[in-house]
């Protein structure tokens, strides 16, 4: 039997992948948009719905970045409400381990798991920066090098809390008057270099025992953290060779923790443009790329590499002759997921040479060098490509990132999913009620 593909639906994010200027584009805040995307994902039998989160509005050049979608609702609150309008779909939320505390986060996830009958997942992210810290009581208290040690301890502590109630702790026996069979249910004590807490956890054990754990860091420490603790990893490595390399790397780390090969699902982010034919899709992708990279956006991207104010440049003109500013202070802030360019001067030289050789303007160059869609083609082409990547161990599935809110998954659900089902690599019905069932994970 071929490997089965896992699919998740990412609510469009606050970056330029999302095309808010499309006539079809709806609200990023109104609940109806979340309902629409989640119900489409559930109709297509997806494993889960996914929400990203960043805890400070992005800035560039000292001002709030205004060219992309800005703003989002609260993760837990949206997911709990979605539990009311879906029945099987997993509900995954990105929650930061720096600007939260284990007791609170554990009770929120345990509550979500109860309220969704076992569909909760937690994407543990580690953004630590002082810029984000300005929104929180403790400020930017954590050094970058400590982000995964706190995350690791945070998750260990949360697991102790999830496990602190035996599954059968509640008797609720009216006759004998025993509510708690185990009077010590919830008792915990935890002490390490980050947390020193003790007492009683106040949420009984939830249907999945613990939420499914996702991880999205890419550094060596991030991969190790995933290998040690995660049930799935959200990556940016969505091409065949890059994907295979990443896949082998993280799966190779599992044995050290006594874990099975299948206990960690590798799920790269995947953008896509569908068309009636491959040519049609290529043409549509070209238009989408121009929507994603306006002249103003192209200049902002260029500024992120050059680390200078380039607002005087014409996006339809040539690249700047001056070199990037390589000082420490960076012009763009709050982009947790974007690693700054390693050698800006070399990259700038490369870009200039390419623009000159291919006669590209600033905007045309940025369209070429920034994230193209991972999958472009007819439904048949895309289904084959997805299947191929999974069968060749570049991935176990994908987190699909539509570029239009909230209808951007409709075509995929209607056209690609049936082809995957015909190939026998994607479920036609959910096999069980919980997200652990969908992902083939054991209940802890």
């Amino acid at each position: 039997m071929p490997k089965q593909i896992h699919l998740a639906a990412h609510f469009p994010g606050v970056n330029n992948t999302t095309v808010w200027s499309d006539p079809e584009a709806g609200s990023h805040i109104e609940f109806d948009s979340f309902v629409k995307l989640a119900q489409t994902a559930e109709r297509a039998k997806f494993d889960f719905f996914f929400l990203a989160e960043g805890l400070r509005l992005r800035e560039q050049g000292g001002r709030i970045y205004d060219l992309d979608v800005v703003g989002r609702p609260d993760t837990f609150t949206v997911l709990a409400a979605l539990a009311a309008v879906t029945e099987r779909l997993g509900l995954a939320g990105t929650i930061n381990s720096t600007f939260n505390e284990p007791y609170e986060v554990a009770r929120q996830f345990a509550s979500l798991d109860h309220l969704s009958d076992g569909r909760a997942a937690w994407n543990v992210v580690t953004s630590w920066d002082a810029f984000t810290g300005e929104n929180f009581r403790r400020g930017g208290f954590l050094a970058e090098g400590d982000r995964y040690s706190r995350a690791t301890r945070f998750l260990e502590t949360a697991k102790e809390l999830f496990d602190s109630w035996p599954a059968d702790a509640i008797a609720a026996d009216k006759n004998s008057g025993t509510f708690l069979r185990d009077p010590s249910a919830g008792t915990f004590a935890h002490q390490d270099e980050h947390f020193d807490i003790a007492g009683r956890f106040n949420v009984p054990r939830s249907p999945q025992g613990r939420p499914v754990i996702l991880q999205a860091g890419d550094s060596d420490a991030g991969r190790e953290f995933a290998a040690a603790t995660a049930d799935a990893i959200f990556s940016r490595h969505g091409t065949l060779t890059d994907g295979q390399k990443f896949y082998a790397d993280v799966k190779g780390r599992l044995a050290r923790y006594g874990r099975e090969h299948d206990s960690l699902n590798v799920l790269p982010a995947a953008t896509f443009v569908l068309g009636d034919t491959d040519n049609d899709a290529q043409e549509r992708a070209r238009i989408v790329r121009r929507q994603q990279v306006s002249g103003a956006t192209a200049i902002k991207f260029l500024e992120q590499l050059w680390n200078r104010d380039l607002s005087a440049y014409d996006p339809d003109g040539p690249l700047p002759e001056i070199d990037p500013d390589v000082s420490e202070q960076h012009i763009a802030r709050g982009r947790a997921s974007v690693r700054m360019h390693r050698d800006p001067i070399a990259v700038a030289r490369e870009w200039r040479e390419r623009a000159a050789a291919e006669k590209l303007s600033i905007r045309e160059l940025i369209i070429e060098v920034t994230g193209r869609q991972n999958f472009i083609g007819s439904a048949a082409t895309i289904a084959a490509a997805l299947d191929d990547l999974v069968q060749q161990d570049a991935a176990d599935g994908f987190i699909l990132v539509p570029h239009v809110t909230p209808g951007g998954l409709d075509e995929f659900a209607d056209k690609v999913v049936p082809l995957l089902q015909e190939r026998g690599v994607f479920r036609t019905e959910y096999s069980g009620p919980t997200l652990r069932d969908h992902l083939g994970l054991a209940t802890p």
Partner: protein
Amino acid sequence: MTNLHLAVALDGAGWDPAAWRAPEARPAELFTARYWTQLVAEAEAGKLDFVTIEDGLGVQTDDPGQVQGRLDAVLIASRVAPLTHHIGLVPTATVTHTEPFHISKAIATLDYVSRGRAGWRVQLSARAHEAQHFGRREIPEINPAFPVREHVRELYDEAADYVEVVRRLWDSWEDDAEIRDAATGRFIDRDKVHYINFEGRFFTVKGPSITPRPPQGQPVVTALAHNEIPYRFAEKAADVVYVTPVDAADAHEIASQVRVRHVFADLVVFLEPTSTAARQLPSDAHVFAGTPAQLADLLLEWQAAGISGFRLRPGRLPDDLRGITRGLVPELQSRGVFRHEYQEDTLRARLGLERPANRYAAVEGARVA
């Protein structure tokens, strides 16, 4: 006679510690969505103004003969929101150990999910064992007979700052900040998104919120208050204060002391078809036991003494909730003091609170960057 406002306070199996053993109680379902959905639907069928949902950052008791454990109240409210249409949803959230940034966006989002029906019951934690669940600060154990006045005052001062931060964050986006201007490629007008730059004795918060201004502008803030310090806190922070008078004279006394837009009286209620003996129950609020008509008499008497609404705490769930929705409500309706249908779309409107102007919106022509 003006209409009175009625809310119910939902907590576990009810406010009687023995409620979970009552014949109709469903103690095994306390941690399911179905349980809460059915209770809130019952309250909505009774056209009540809103429900509050209790919460806390620790177990309620160490007595294995009583209900222990609870789900997060904000998430319960949110889970119920899409399945209800009119009733206000007012979860409890504790301020002492949590982040105003998180609570602000959570309540704002509840307001989006419920289309303008969100509120918040602000709660402090002065319990040493709850502080230990966070391990970030010491809270001395407070003996209720001799409260540590200064310490309590500090906690309330901190709570007032906290609510101020939450409210500023709700206003940190002007209503028309999202412009989607294709011509300039701008999604927002960033002159309409504001840093709150809060600097207080206890913390600083920069802002803006990541969540745009909620539908009501400012969701309804509520707080329970038993004496002087919390009264002053409620005056600063709340739109609705819950107080605990023991009789009509006391109600009059408190209502004249506390200057909050709405003064609601809390009452624990046990509703029976015929008059019954008084109930013994350890309670901060007056305990009523009797018929719906007797309760209606009491509410009207207290209303005449200056109380604008009531937060009824059902002794047993679902029995006393049904007693309210199917007994008390028809009684009040027949006396012409309670709505037959919902009229207003938002919780603020139902409480006669206008949608407030945004504190950061510049007066025309006088905008400061």
